[in-house]
């Protein structure tokens, strides 16, 4: 006995569940299959619970520096289990929220392990029972998981992935973070602010290697000042868990090797798409370098079969998956969505300080042959930043000199993850420097720095 749907989605992360809702809005009968928890990694084990943890470390940091604001706080301490409990509660609340959304949109949620038995058929196994879903179209949205260190899989005891790091059994005292992407830096920042001695090792020459080089350099300076040890252009080898900790050897580019023992290790060296055991091989779905090959609307080489989110490649971001999901669903519905492009997807790192960016780095823009106008405006020149006691950081804008197109924007400092969207909208609407200059920014706000940075690119910054 099979059940018939217009659309079946394998995976209920921010790609899958958003696609399901959009499809329901367009009148489709939708089923969504999830093997763990609705909402996927993002809101159960990723974006959201880490933000809860980082809020804790941020407040903890402020409490330790309360005197700077004229406050006295004595005996500042924390209870790790309560911190984790709050983070789990936040995740739970959002998980329940997605459940509610599925119900509201009449989406059939099928819990269990789903696999494609045909291009348009998913067989879902839950224990001994199976359910067969037939659908006119199927979307693969199975996401990704952390990449393991070769030869030393994370054990959850002392060697952690993001998933273990989110529910620590004990507070690390001396932590090694391997990999300095957003995930590595966020955990490094959390544990460092909570009191751990943190070392971050990055294979490339800069931390946060996808960011603009100036941002990366500023981040490195700030984190070092906070007490972190950053080792770039280096490799980690011989990770050996023992009873008292994990021994690891860090080899720098000049060949110097140094072995130390850490209480815990977090492995954040990238992710691997979840493509196994879902029937892709038998259907002949083209997978290239671990990514499902899709057209700009998300269709695979197999008719009726689509893929969105992490399984289709970088950037591995929830909002990219959601957007791809909407494009695919609208294409299935016969609407004419614009083909999916990654030119305007913002990226955010929620460490202390925060980093946010969209578009091309200065180096990438130069490499692409643009003549540039580059603006920079520091937090120290902004009244609100000084009032907040957050005078570190800057806003950088990169314009094409010939056309005034905003090629990229890069920010580091307090609350920049909430600021970046202004530039993302500007870019989507294809504004030039002229409209940005003519726009009135409220005073006093951090967003004034966005204005000043644009003015600065044309030599007109007022407050610096």
């Amino acid at each position: 006995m099979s059940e018939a749907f217009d659309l079946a989605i394998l995976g209920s992360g921010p790609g899958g569940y958003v696609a399901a809702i959009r499809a329901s809005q367009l009148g489709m009968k939708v089923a969504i299959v999830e093997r763990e928890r609705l909402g996927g990694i993002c809101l159960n084990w990723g974006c959201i619970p880490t933000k809860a943890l980082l809020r804790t470390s941020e407040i903890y940091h402020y409490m330790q520096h309360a005197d700077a604001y004229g406050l006295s706080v004595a005996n500042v301490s924390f209870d790790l289990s309560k911190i984790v409990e709050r983070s789990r509660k936040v995740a739970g609340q959002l998980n329940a929220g997605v459940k509610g959304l599925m119900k509201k949109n009449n989406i059939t949620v099928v819990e269990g392990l789903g696999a494609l038995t045909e291009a348009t058929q998913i067989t879902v196994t839950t224990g001994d029972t199976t359910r067969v879903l037939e659908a006119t179209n199927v979307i693969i949205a199975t996401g990704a998981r952390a990449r393991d260190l070769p030869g030393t899989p994370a054990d959850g005891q002392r060697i952690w992935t993001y998933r273990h790091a989110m529910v620590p059994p004990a507070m690390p005292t001396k932590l090694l973070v391997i990999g300095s992407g957003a995930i590595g830096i966020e955990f490094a920042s959390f544990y460092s602010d909570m009191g751990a001695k943190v070392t971050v090792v990055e294979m490339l020459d800069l931390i946060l290697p996808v960011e603009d080089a100036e941002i990366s350099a500023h981040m490195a300076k700030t984190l070092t000042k906070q007490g972190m040890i950053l080792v770039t252009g280096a490799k980690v080898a011989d990770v050996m868990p023992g009873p008292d900790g994990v021994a690891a050897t860090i080899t720098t580019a000049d060949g110097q090797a140094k072995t130390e023992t850490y209480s815990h290790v977090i492995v954040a060296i990238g992710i691997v798409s979840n493509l196994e055991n879902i029937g892709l091989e038998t259907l002949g779905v083209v997978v290239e370098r671990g990514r499902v090959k899709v057209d700009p609307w998300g269709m695979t080489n197999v008719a009726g079969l689509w893929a969105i989110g992490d399984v289709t490649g970088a950037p591995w971001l929830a909002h990219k998956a959601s957007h791809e999901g909407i494009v695919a669903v609208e294409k299935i519905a016969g609407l004419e969505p614009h083909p999916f492009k990654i030119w305007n997807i913002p990226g955010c790192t929620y460490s202390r300080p925060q980093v946010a960016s969209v578009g091309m780095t200065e180096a990438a823009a130069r490499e692409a042959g643009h003549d540039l106008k580059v603006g920079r405006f520091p937090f120290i020149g902004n009244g609100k930043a000084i009032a907040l006691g957050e005078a570190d950081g800057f806003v950088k804008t990169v314009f094409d000199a010939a056309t005034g197109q905003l090629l990229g924007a890069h920010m580091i400092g307090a609350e920049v993850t909430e600021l970046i969207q202004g530039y993302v909208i500007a870019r989507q609407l294809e504004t030039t420097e002229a409209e940005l200059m003519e726009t009135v920014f409220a005073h006093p706000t951090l967003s004034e720095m966005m204005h000043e940075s644009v003015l600065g690119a044309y030599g007109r910054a007022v407050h610096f």
Partner: protein
Amino acid sequence: MPIDITMPALSPTMETGTLAKWLVKVGDPVKSGDILCEIETDKATMEVESIDEGTVAELLVTDGAADIKVGAIIARLSGEGEAAASSLETAAPAPLPTQPAAESPSPQRGEGAEKNAAAAPSPTRGEGDSRGDAARRAKGVGNPADTAAAAPPTGASLPPGARVNASPLARRLAAAANLDLAGVTGSGPHGRIVKADVAAAAASPRPPPAEAAAEPEASTAHAAPAPRDVPPPRPVHDAAHDDARPAPAAVALSAPAGVPMEAVKLSNIRRTIARRLTESKATVPHFYLTVDIRLDALLQLRSDLNKSLEATGIKVSVNDLLIKALGLALTRVPDANVQFAGAELYKFARADISVAVAIPGGLITPVITDAANKRLSVIASEMKDLAARAKDGKLKPEEYQGGTASISNLGIFGIKQFDAVINPPQGLILAVGAGEPRPYVVDNAIVVATVMSATGSFDHRAIDGAVGAQFMSAFKRLVENPLGMLA
């Protein structure tokens, strides 16, 4: 806050529609669920319900106004407590797009209008212009900046040379390239001209009448269904493409002098028929195969079936049986269940039959999906329902779009045999004549039998003579031995 009522998209591919009739007038109170107007797409007329409450403040298009873009504002409601009447009178005068008068089968519209007008000089340029104004105006009043300046909305038309909907970057690039944005088609939201459009326009030579004409073709190819089990064949009556191009006979030839006449504006349906069938005859290499088919066994079966179905009230017609036979013949000769698609050939794994139904002012082809596997009683009741609603113009687009082959039956008019024009992009159409007593040779003796002639028209690009012949012979066998259809 006045509430804007916009032209709704009644099907996924609809881009424009004709406002057939307003069912409310200025000053009428409207609540959610009230029917505001009837919208005519190329093949169907649909009622539009209000989702808002308020009082009708302005009707921005008149009855019969054609080619209104999806998303264009067609009316305004004033909300609770707002003076509706104050702005009413000003809304009515001149700038309202009037229904193109009788002499104007003006084919152009929207984005393609200017280019097409250049390509196919129309004697009714004036009408086209007035509608162009209307379109600009509809756009203009939708612009927050414009309405903010003129509150309450007066409905006065914008000056000529009104705001072009383009991004700042696009404007700057156009200025640098010395490109007039008026001639650029916007691909952004609501037709906004964005950087990519300017880049494309700058890269192509102007003025491009030939390219303008080619554009819809390109998008047709682009929108062709990806191969799948049964690719939804290119919507046969795809409003998006229909309306984006002129009717092919756009150049009006003068009528013979002195003959009393009346010029009737082409309905959307007529325009679509004119365009599509001209395209079919002009571009699809047709060939025709005719067979004579003895009907006695089929008529006997029909009579037996209807006796046994008496209690259900369902009556199976000869045409219903022929639809089933056509579906089965296509599955038995799958090489005939195909569609030519440029670089590819779509081979369908299911036979969906488009059935030509005459309706006032034209014809329409509702689709019986999977005719081969559908029970006759189901085909009969579906056809009855589809034909009835077709005559009322109430078919939904998905009910008449698609189909992998067509059937047209003029037997009821006593036509012995005819050749039908292929319904593109399909590969074949079957033309069925009247079943009549004819001398028929059985076992070398002439007997009188009920015989009909059926002629298949085939797209030679997709189907060769031998395959067509196999298909016709399979069809003949099924009709002459109709018990095979019940198996």
